């Protein structure tokens, strides 16, 4: 049921999609915060959940650094993230980490390394 060009999608369909996506996203956000007031997690399980969030964030970093769509994101981005990560590991401040990651990736691309 795909459409040839985006302009053929009826505005009402787009609005409905946006509304459903917004409502579902909000439900995901609220569910966790409400759930934790309803059930008292045993400390062991709470620790596991906290650990799980670090694992989720680490996985986001890994996928965002390495993958674009279903393919390798290219060396420029990977090296950029690595430079930022290395600086952070050396406890450099954000004002250094963030521009260093961005400028490394952008600089490599200027050099033709995608």
């Amino acid at each position, binding site marked *: *049921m795909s459409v*040839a060009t985006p302009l053929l999608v009826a505005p009402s369909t787009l609005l409905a999609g946006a509304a459903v996506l917004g409502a579902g996203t909000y439900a*995901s956000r609220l569910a966790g915060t409400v759930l934790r007031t309803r059930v008292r997690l045993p400390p062991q399980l709470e620790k596991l959940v906290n650990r799980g969030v670090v*694992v989720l964030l680490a996985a986001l970093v890994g996928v*965002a650094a390495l993958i674009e769509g279903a393919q390798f*994101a290219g060396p*420029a981005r990977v090296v*950029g993230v690595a430079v930022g990560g290395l600086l952070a590991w050396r406890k450099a401040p954000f004002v250094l980490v963030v521009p260093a990651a961005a400028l490394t990736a952008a600089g490599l691309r200027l050099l033709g390394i995608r």
Partner: protein
Amino acid sequence: MTNEYRAFIISVMRSLRQSLSPGRFRDIVLVGAATLLVGASFGAIAIGAGLPGYLPSLLSVVVFAGAAQFLFVGIIAAGGSPLAATVAGLVVNLRHLPFGLTIGDVFGNRWRGRIFGSYLMSDETVAFTLAEFTPAARRAAYWICGSVLFVSWNLGVVIGSFGGAFLDDPAILGLDAAFPAVLLALILPSLRDDAMVRRCAVVGVVLAVASAPFLPAGLPVLLALAGLLAGVRRTPAALPDGPGR
């Protein structure tokens, strides 16, 4: 808005601001600036794909989740169905549920805080919250980062949607490398301090990256939770373990 109400808001903002170190506040502002640029590129990309001018801003207010918004617009721009785009975005955003379980304490016991605060949840805001250790600092990090990113993201999207395509590719500025680096920098202390978290994270990242080419977006990151098994097997329940985090 009455004057008393405005004074109340200002005093709340001031007390939140004081609970956060000046360095942290600056970090959040920096991430806000980068978020504005990515928002601008989102707006420009969506308009460039032929979507109506109001849609990027509408999505940003209603959904307020960058990755899902890019995916939604990307699928529709590529000729996919709005239904597929919606489902894909919902899957990507499922990760917010465990986020809420962990950082829900910042909302206290008030429903108002929970209802509005949940709306501001994002990867960066959660990571900034996790990087603080006292309840006051966690609360401040969440609300300040959430508000700053909400304003900067939406402002950026409006600029990108109506200001012409001055930045239609975040890769030109290397912003695609900046955001993973931000999250990495924020979780590094947890990874550094705790060998168990580190082991689970390594297994999780390998699972996520290895499955990313084959699974729909969002699922690889959720699959990473299986990395927790790398920790469970090795922690006997009897192990005395201090007031851990």
